[in-house]
């Protein structure tokens, strides 16, 4: 499998050297095409920072980040930002920003909305949708862009259980629909990690302390023997 993302001893520091926060420190990893990588850890451990670093929204303050230039990326945020436009135009906007003509973008957006089951709401104002529907619009943007690497920053954290299941199922469909689609997502929901991930990275205070297959991450004997901090986290989250 080809490498689509790589970090080399990457670090991110917010603020000044004297009064800043070391959000990430010495993170080195490779993500291959088709992997489904979950970032887990307590609040403030650096999950969101690592996602932004990998996606290119942040530059490393030390080290390097390498991305496959031929791989299209998209990102879903915890709260999707939709413009004061129709649902379809919101999806088309992503394509327009990447150079598509507006009329062509609209046609592709209509197809993408079918993928997430929102074609009936295409003409509605995006701000009138529920949180779950808005997240589906954000996913439709990724569909329209044909993103091969999809970053997700706790995209179901602010949704009700029903919407959570819907969005999670659509993300699963997305990953399965195209060969070698890569998912990198941050989540507090260990059940979701178990269902979606093939690999788990555990972060604590900006450092990556464990890089395991999902089977090993949920194998208590492996985790307690080799990764006590991650084990303590999983036990705490499971309580």
């Amino acid at each position, binding site marked *: 499998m080809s490498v689509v993302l790589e970090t080399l001893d990457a670090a991110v520091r917010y603020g000044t050297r004297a009064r800043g926060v070391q959000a990430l420190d010495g993170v080195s990893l490779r993500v291959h095409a088709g992997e489904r990588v979950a970032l887990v850890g307590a609040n403030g451990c650096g999950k969101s920072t690592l996602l*932004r670093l990998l*996606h290119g*929204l942040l530059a490393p303050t030390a080290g390097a980040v390498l991305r496959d230039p031929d791989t299209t990326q*998209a*990102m879903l*945020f915890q709260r*999707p*930002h939709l*413009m*004061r436009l129709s649902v379809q135009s919101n999806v088309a*906007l*992503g394509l327009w*920003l*990447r150079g598509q003509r507006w009329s062509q973008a609209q046609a592709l957006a209509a197809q993408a909305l079918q993928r997430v089951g929102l074609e009936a709401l295409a003409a509605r*104002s995006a*701000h*009138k949708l529920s949180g779950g529907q808005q997240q589906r619009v954000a996913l439709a*943007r990724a569909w329209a862009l044909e993103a091969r690497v999809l970053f997700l920053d706790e995209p179901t954290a602010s949704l009700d259980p029903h919407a959570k299941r819907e969005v999670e199922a659509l993300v699963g469909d997305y990953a399965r629909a195209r060969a070698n689609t890569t998912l990198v997502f941050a989540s507090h929901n260990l059940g979701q990690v178990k269902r979606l991930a093939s690999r788990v990275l555990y972060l604590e205070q900006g450092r990556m302390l464990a890089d395991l297959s999902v089977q090993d991450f949920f194998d208590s004997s492996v985790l307690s023997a080799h990764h006590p901090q991650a084990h303590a986290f999983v036990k705490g989250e499971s309580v």
Partner: protein
Amino acid sequence: MTTFSESAATALQLVAALDPTLVSIVWRSLAVSASACALACSLGLVLGAWLGVARFAGRAAVLTLLNTFLAVPSVVVGLVVYLLLSRSGPLGFLGWLFSFKAMVLAQALLVLPVVAALTRQVVEDAETLHGEQLASLGAGALLRSLLLAWDERFALLTVVLAAFGRAISEVGAVMLVGGNVEGFTRVMTTAIALETSKGDLPLALGLGLVLLAVVLSLNALTSLIRRWREREEGGTPALPALGMSL
């Protein structure tokens, strides 16, 4: 008291009868302030939106300077424009002093910081909330600033109304650069000042009533926009407080 009540009654008669002198002054005021607002907004909205998104060395100093200009008295702006347009000034060759254009220029310079500073605040708040999403889709700083400004168009509409309110209610700048020439550069505020000093209280009061009505209408329009937006979107963050005053 008698003088006041008599003057008020005569003023109301002037307004009701659409006194030609009063109407021409009101129309000139509206034209000057609308032109100044259009000029200031064409530059201030883009500049403010860009400042809300762009990050560059010296940005904090630029913002401090911009916010300082918010508090510059209109008479100081008038003085600067007067010096620029006077015969020996750098723009003296234009021959604009004591003209409609000079008043437009002075008011535009007066409200430009208002438009830019308020737009900057609105767009910066939007950037904090949603800038990453647009950056993720590939929008650079300038495009992002324009998209966020468009997205916040209802909030920015109230910024435009606030700028118009500031322009139409100022007196110092237009008095200096317009010269208060009857039939040419006399606007509501300068006419009120002149007529009061002459003791012609009915016309001054009549113009004051119209000016009050204009500002009241702008505030009412701002409230209507706010309510309509809240109804359309089912509750949104409050628009910036833009209470206007004479």
